[in-house]
């Protein structure tokens, strides 16, 4: 139903084919959060995966790093219409965390320090497509941007890359998390513009 806005020409541009529909390229890094920024000391940080038996698989900060930190280059797309391309990240592949976790469940609820949650299908987190990220742009991840560690799922809108992540809980169904209950799409594929429901 789109129509031309009278008088609008926009900034000079060449549309980058790596930008999904409705996204604008930014150089800075905007912050989107629903509340104050939690500050978590890595000495107290802990990461937990809970499977359907209720068993917890735990990692301290050092245990996480010991799994192996990789370099990642990713394009990130925020639901609020900005994207950053070719962003350098470092983090631990979620595949590594699931090496010894057995689960029949297909969905995951990511939990964060501060109480936020977001739901993700397990398959979106595996096969080299998701990380527990600890560095961005060559620096330790700033608390504003989710540090000390955030989930990084660059092929989905960026709210799925839960800031301040502290655990994953396996679920039988795709129950909505905090952001999804507040109107964001259950899956959030930027190429399909799955922003809101």
């Amino acid at each position: 139903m789109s129509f031309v806005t009278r008088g609008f020409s926009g900034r000079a541009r060449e549309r980058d084919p790596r930008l999904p529909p409705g996204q604008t390229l930014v150089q800075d890094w905007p912050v989107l959060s629903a509340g104050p920024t939690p500050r978590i000391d890595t000495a107290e940080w802990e990461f937990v995966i809970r499977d359907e038996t209720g068993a917890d698989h735990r990692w301290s900060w050092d245990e996480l790093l010991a799994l192996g930190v990789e370099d990642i280059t990713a394009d990130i797309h925020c639901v609020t219409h900005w994207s950053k391309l070719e962003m350098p990240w470092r983090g631990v592949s979620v595949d590594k965390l699931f090496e010894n976790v057995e689960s029949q469940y297909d969905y995951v609820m990511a939990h964060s320090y501060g109480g936020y949650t977001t739901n993700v299908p397990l398959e979106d987190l595996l096969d080299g497509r998701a990380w527990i990220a600890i560095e961005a742009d060559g620096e330790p991840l700033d608390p504003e941007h989710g540090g000390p560690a955030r989930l990084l799922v660059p092929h989905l809108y960026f709210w799925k890359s839960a800031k301040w992540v502290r655990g994953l809980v396996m679920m039988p169904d795709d129950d909505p998390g905090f952001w999804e209950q507040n109107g964001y799409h259950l899956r959030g594929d930027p190429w399909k513009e799955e922003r809101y429901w």
Partner: protein
Amino acid sequence: MSADPLTRPDTARRRPAWHVATVAELAPETPTAARLVLDVPTWPGNDAGAHLDVRLTAPDGYQATRSYSIASSGETSRVVLAVDEVPDGEVSPFLVRELRPGDQLELHGPLGAFFVWQPSRDDRPVQLIAGGSGVVPLYAMAASHAAAADPAPFRLLYSVRTPRHVFFADELAALVGPAFDLDLAYTREAPDGRQGDIGRITKDTLAARTIPAARRPQVFVCGPTGFVEAVASWLRALGHAAADIRTERFGGT
């Protein structure tokens, strides 16, 4: 993992959709901002504090989309926005200076079910804290609170450059009464005789001029990202629980 402390407002959600708006009125709001009154016949109404996306399309199909908070609320097809011009911005200078009455715009909304206030019928106090154009959704909350004659005590602390940069100045002044306090904090220039008070909001300002944590207010903070970051962390230091603080970051630094 413990229960999720963040609950969503119990509201029948209005599903976001695309709408065509016609510009009904345009007026300067401050020396750098404009008020846009839009006619949106299909608008489903919105909670106070919600926002929408404005999408502009150039003749070659290029599109730019930005979010704007809604100054109006409730069941109405008149949607009010207030847009501050960001120098060298792509969208805000167009909205503030190029738009004319009768022009049509594409909107997507209403958006945001968390940074909203609804009349509650309980008397839990509400503290609003705004920086610059960040007052837009908070003005909507204060106006909705007055319209509903809600008993909750409201207080707004509003950081602004000069008296001429106050958004909704007359409307806010008219809301002041037993259930609504307005504190203006000027960063560059104060009204005559108050030059001593000039400066950015600090933790001490918050301690002196907001509802104390002991009264467990629900706090809404909105403005440029740096402002919101600073205020929210001071609120935590002053003893407010994280779950009591809701934020909206407009961007910039």
